[in-house]
């Protein structure tokens, strides 16, 4: 498992290529890439704040939970912080497994948990001012899918 929390840009394609070589006899690799979207008022920039002492451990715990639930060969999480612009890559997740169902479910689970349980906060600066992105009820609801 690799967890990277960084301000530097990264290339999800190059990461996917490297990641696909790490698993032993894998049949399925799923990746998710999150990008900065423009917003109605015109996004000038997005600033992502995080809690450095907690972030990597919180992500590692979420990945560990995924590994107890599904049979994974490997998992990768990269999440940026700092100042980004529309179209920039914010983060990526990748999972590999012998079978596609495990790789898909684990990547979906990781995204739902990273969204609401990893200590990142996004602020948008638009032509009309700036504001913190609010968490959505649907993101919290999404976690219920994984109750057991």
């Amino acid at each position: 498992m690799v967890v990277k929390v960084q301000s530097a840009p990264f290339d999800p394609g190059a990461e996917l290529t490297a990641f696909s070589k790490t698993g032993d006899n894998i049949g399925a690799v799923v990746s998710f890439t999150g990008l900065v979207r423009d917003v109605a008022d015109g996004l000038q920039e997005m600033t992502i704040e995080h809690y450095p002492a907690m972030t990597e451990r919180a992500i590692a715990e979420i990945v560990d939970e995924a590994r107890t639930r599904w049979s994974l060969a490997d998992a990768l999480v990269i999440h940026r912080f700092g100042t980004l612009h529309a179209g920039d890559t914010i983060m990526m997740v990748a999972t590999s497994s012998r079978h596609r169902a495990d790789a898909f479910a684990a990547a979906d689970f990781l995204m739902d948990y990273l969204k609401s349980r990893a200590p990142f906060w996004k602020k948008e600066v638009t032509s009309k001012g700036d504001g913190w992105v609010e968490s959505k009820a649907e993101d919290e609801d999404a976690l219920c899918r994984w109750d057991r």
Partner: protein
Amino acid sequence: MVDVLYFAWVRERIGLPNEQVETKAATVMDLVEELRAREERYAVAFSDISALRVAVDQELAEFDAPIGTAREIAFFPPMTGG
């Protein structure tokens, strides 16, 4: 003595990212009450704790969690990663 950390709009409303707090609070909620009583900016930041989350020693916790020997308490809005 605990390190109290603030993130996102909690940091902005209180006006600083962290501070050392002398407290005998038994629980997180007791600490919140002490902070609220300090100054208006704290009272505003902590006015609705349903809009806040807390981590004790870098682990997510509930507001009724005991502080015990914890060294670091962080307050922040719901996370918006991903």
